[in-house]
């Protein structure tokens, strides 16, 4: 890894990033660190869309299926009529399925974020060096 380049201003940092790309530095070798989200970085260095959304979809789908399966199967296990309502009463079961859709979807999205961002990172937790409020460009050495 080359020595990191530090910038105090966002515009300065973005200009240097654009110049670097113009000069032909391979985009996949450039890494950036910013004190807050800078959407322009993704325009200069396009990366594939975050797969976190897949975790959201799978989690939410699993939640819906679990909600319906759980309520229906447990009701069938003891098929007693309560309050004159059918043993399998879908409208109330929908409420449980809805809650579990949100619950599983949220937790799975959070898990997806941790996996894809490789967090928690023991190395980073123990690292002494932090970049603070500066904008940083790092270029990985080519092989």
């Amino acid at each position, binding site marked *: 890894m080359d020595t990191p380049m530090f910038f105090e201003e966002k515009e300065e940092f973005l200009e240097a990033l654009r110049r670097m790309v113009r000069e032909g530095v391979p985009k996949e070798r450039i890494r950036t660190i910013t004190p807050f989200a800078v959407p322009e970085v993704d325009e200069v260095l396009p990366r594939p869309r975050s797969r*976190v959304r897949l975790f959201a979809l799978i989690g939410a789908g699993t939640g819906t299926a679990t909600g319906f399966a759980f309520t229906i199967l447990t009701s069938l296990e003891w098929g007693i009529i309560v309050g004159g309502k059918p043993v399998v009463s879908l409208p109330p079961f929908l409420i449980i399925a809805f809650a579990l859709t949100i619950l599983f979807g949220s937790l799975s999205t959070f898990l997806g974020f941790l996996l894809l961002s490789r967090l928690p990172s023991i190395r980073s937790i123990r690292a002494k060096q932090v970049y603070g409020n500066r904008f940083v460009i790092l270029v990985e050495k080519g092989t």
Partner: protein
Amino acid sequence: MAAAEKYARADEGILKAMDKPGRAYLAGLGLTASLAVIGGLLWAYQIKNGLGVAGYTHPISWAIYITNFVFWVGIAHSGTLISAVLFLFQARYRTSFNRPAEAMTVFALMVAGLFPLIHLGRSWVFYYLIPYPTQREIWVNFRSPLIWDVFAVGTYFTVSAVFFYVGMIPDLAIARRCRDGIRKKIYSVLSLGWNGTQREWKHYNMLYLFLASFATPLVASVHSVVSWDFAMSLLPGWHTTIFAPYFVAGAIFSGTAMVITLVVPMRKALNLYDYITDDHFESIAKILLLTSLIVSYAYIIEFGLAWYGGNVFETELFRYRALGHYKIFFWIMIACNSVIPLTLLAKKLRRNIPFLLIVSLFVNVGMWLERFVIIVSSLARDYDPYAWNALIYRPTFVEAGITLGAFGMFFMLYLIFLKTLPVLSISEIKEHM
């Protein structure tokens, strides 16, 4: 001023709140903690002696504890509205309120969750509500609104806690950099080793968007489910289809008032005038005004339905609500929730922060009373006319003490939050600088 200097000032200005506490803070913490302990002791007294120490009288078997439950779940709603819904609408002023509002949501739900247990005669068997395989081979009744509550409130608490924590990750990394000793170590672990790389930000932004999208329907669904605890019964005053939207509007109304109640003193005590401006308060005051109008509309509709429906019990209940034993609470509720907030139609008053704080306090009182009026007056006028005037419900010192204890617990948790976690979203504030 150079950007780096501005960012450093934001770090310092916001994290300064976490400095060593002063006497006023410690006095506040001592007072709120004492109230919470007294509330806890009274609950222990109630467990030992049974629910007879509460003021329940037939037919009023739901009273202040359920009032408190609905009140605190309602308070939580505004936090989600501000953090999730306003995020999706890209309302910039949310950055001034989202962290305190999210903290408020989590703490309000912690308090709310205790009340169904306090209300149970045998609190120690609360786990009967949770579906688990038992030796009796019988499961919970999923057709019961009380079980819906367990799922709705449980989900709401979990999602709110995750949302609260996720929003803080970049700020915990800042706290880690600006603190030393044991605190640095704690913030290092809590920040998960966040660096702010492009990859982290990309996944983080997607996560935040999805959590906001998941949390948004909860704003409508959770209090709807709470309202169905009442609406699914056949009691006059409860059994009505407008309850879900009526409760949701009321929840946002009371929660917004509580955000104002918490943030106005916080801004002054922590000197956060650069980040929470009068413009921001004006925007939040508009939400308060709008939801007040919706709630007032619901009050009118309720009376309209009773009158137009022609059911004698329903008509009698609404006459009783306005003119019966509990009429004082009804009229205070109308004054606090429907009349006083109308002053916010004046721009000058919306921007008058001490006035806004006073209005928010009235709304807090009014919304607590609203739940009391709905619960107690409806039960007092059910389908058994022989019981109508037999006994008037009066809360006992146990109920009053536990209620005060809940307020103590909520404010104690909030005070602890102020000294331990970043009180505003620093990275979002920097983004908009």
